[in-house]
């Protein structure tokens, strides 16, 4: 494709932002796949060495109040947060995209009712809604995923519906109908592929957002049962010991949450600049 070569020169910054994002994501993803390579200790090992010892050569991020290795918890915790965030973002995309397509394409009463429902969900602050759902569903990996997913369904719905509305007015859609294309064909071959590029960008940004939401939920104790290493949970634990000078328990999981969210945000922003043809016109 032509824009590929051109944009590499013209949009160097965007490319670097995206590559940096991808590197961060790949690094953390590797940690989730081979945690034992990165951490010598088990995240739940309460005998890793001393209570709340400061970072040292043996424990580069120190140990927590239950004598667990903080680095091991960071490494294994990546698995939880990344899994939940990606699964939630994908789940909301899988539900939101088809609904948006159908709603925008069909129009009429169906569209109005669905839009009303989605807009009312959207009008809630995301975290409050996630808290409500998480509280309703109870703790558990699947439940927290569902609670986070619900928040983002309207994002996809609104985006895809808007794009569908504009693409179905394109001349190429009318031209295809004028030579005998079915409505289903128009939807699947003409509208959907032209909508999906924008969705990729939003997906990446949404994962970044879902990471924060997941961390927030487990921070306030609505997330996961004990025993599953989780950054948000370690954060709330570390908070208690911060006044007594134990800075490492809260700092490292916090930095990791930030880093991971940053990675997906950079990927999303980079993709947005590169894929968006309107920005290319500048």
């Amino acid at each position, binding site marked *: 494709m032509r824009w590929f070569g051109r944009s590499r020169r013209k949009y160097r910054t965007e490319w670097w932002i995206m590559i940096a994002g991808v590197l961060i994501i790949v690094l953390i993803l590797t940690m989730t796949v081979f945690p034992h390579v990165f951490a010598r200790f088990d995240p739940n090992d309460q005998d890793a060495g001393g209570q709340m010892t400061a970072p040292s050569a043996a424990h580069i991020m120190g140990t927590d109040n239950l004598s667990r290795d903080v680095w091991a918890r960071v490494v294994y915790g990546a698995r939880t947060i990344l899994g939940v965030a990606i699964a939630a973002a994908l789940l909301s995309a899988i539900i939101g995209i088809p609904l948006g397509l159908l709603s925008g394409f069909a129009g009429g009463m169906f569209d109005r009712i669905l839009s009303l429902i989605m807009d009312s969900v959207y009008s809630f602050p995301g975290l409050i809604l996630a808290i409500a759902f998480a509280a309703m569903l109870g703790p558990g990996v699947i439940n927290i995923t569902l609670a986070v997913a619900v928040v983002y369904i309207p994002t996809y719905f609104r985006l895809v519906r808007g794009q569908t509305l504009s693409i179905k007015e394109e*001349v190429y859609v009318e*031209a*295809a109908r004028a*030579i*005998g*294309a*079915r409505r289903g064909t128009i939807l699947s*071959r003409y509208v959907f592929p*032209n909508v999906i590029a924008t969705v990729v960008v939003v997906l990446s940004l949404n994962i970044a957002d879902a990471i924060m939401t997941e961390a927030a939920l487990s921070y306030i104790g609505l997330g996961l049962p004990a025993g599953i290493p989780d950054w948000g949970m370690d954060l709330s634990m570390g908070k208690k010991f911060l006044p007594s000078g134990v800075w490492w328990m809260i700092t490292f999981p916090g930095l990791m949450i930030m880093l991971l969210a940053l990675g997906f945000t950079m990927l999303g922003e980079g993709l947005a600049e590169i894929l968006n043809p309107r920005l290319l016109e500048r």
Partner: protein
Amino acid sequence: MPSAEKTILEVQDLSIAYPISIGVVRAVEGVSFTLDDGEALGLVGESGCGKSTLGLSILKLQRPPGRVTEGKIMYRGTDILGMSERALLKMRGQSISMIFQNPLTSLNPLFTIERHFLETIHFHDSSVPREKALAAVEKMLETLGIERKRLKEYPHQLSGGMRQRIMIGLALIMNPDILIADEPTTSLDVIVEAGFTDLLLSLRRIYKLSIILITHNLGLVAEIADRIAVMYAGSIMEIAPTEEIFARPLHPYTQGLINCVPNILVDQKELVTMPGSPPDLVDPPIGCRFAPRCPHVMAVCREGAPALLEHAPGHSAACWLYAKSTREKRVNAVEG
């Protein structure tokens, strides 16, 4: 008048309205015309006079919320407006096809040219094997004068003129009887337009096409059309064979349109324009819709709309200026 067997398409007293918040836009009002097998009919008029709406309605694709309030569109004896969705899908592309004025955006940006053709063939018959379909496509490309290697390219790699040729190829690949071309050359430059005109003429011969050419380009219709229908504010004002209408335009609107075309042989200091603008279609003037701009306006023009009557063989006009003479002729005919 054309004989019944030769008539392929007959639009009878068609009216199309768009209900909008401030009222009802009567985009097309009481339009009737026929199209003979193999004939090219030019549909001429200013922007917004209902030409495109009329073209789209022949495929029953008028844009929402537009709907046909009255009339029939008979294609080979069947009313298109009463067809089932299934029959419509079969008809579009196989019997009647349409191309649009914006070739740059008429193709799906994500499909290669080859995929456009294969998809179009498969809209109509999904059982056609790929090789057979490709053979048909290659034959079509040859007719269009496009190289085979272009098949693998995407629309953005082609020029506007080439894209318009692809569009017409897609419209004709299923061998329809009628092609509706809605301002096909509007966004093309004159050289490309000339090439496209030649292509349209040769395709017409090869495929024995009937053509409805919607345009405001009088030069283009003069070259292609056998007959011309002049539309104003949703109604047909005059309809006549091409040579006849240029030689003896009856309706003052037609005369105005023809006068507006600059003539290189006459020393003109200024461009001739027609004063005024088309009426508001939500609240059109009572009587003749052209009356407010007409240089020959009479009292009767503001009282009732004139009917489209034949004033010479094959030459009809909707104007009070000629009504009297026709009435006399009729009276004479009855007396004789």
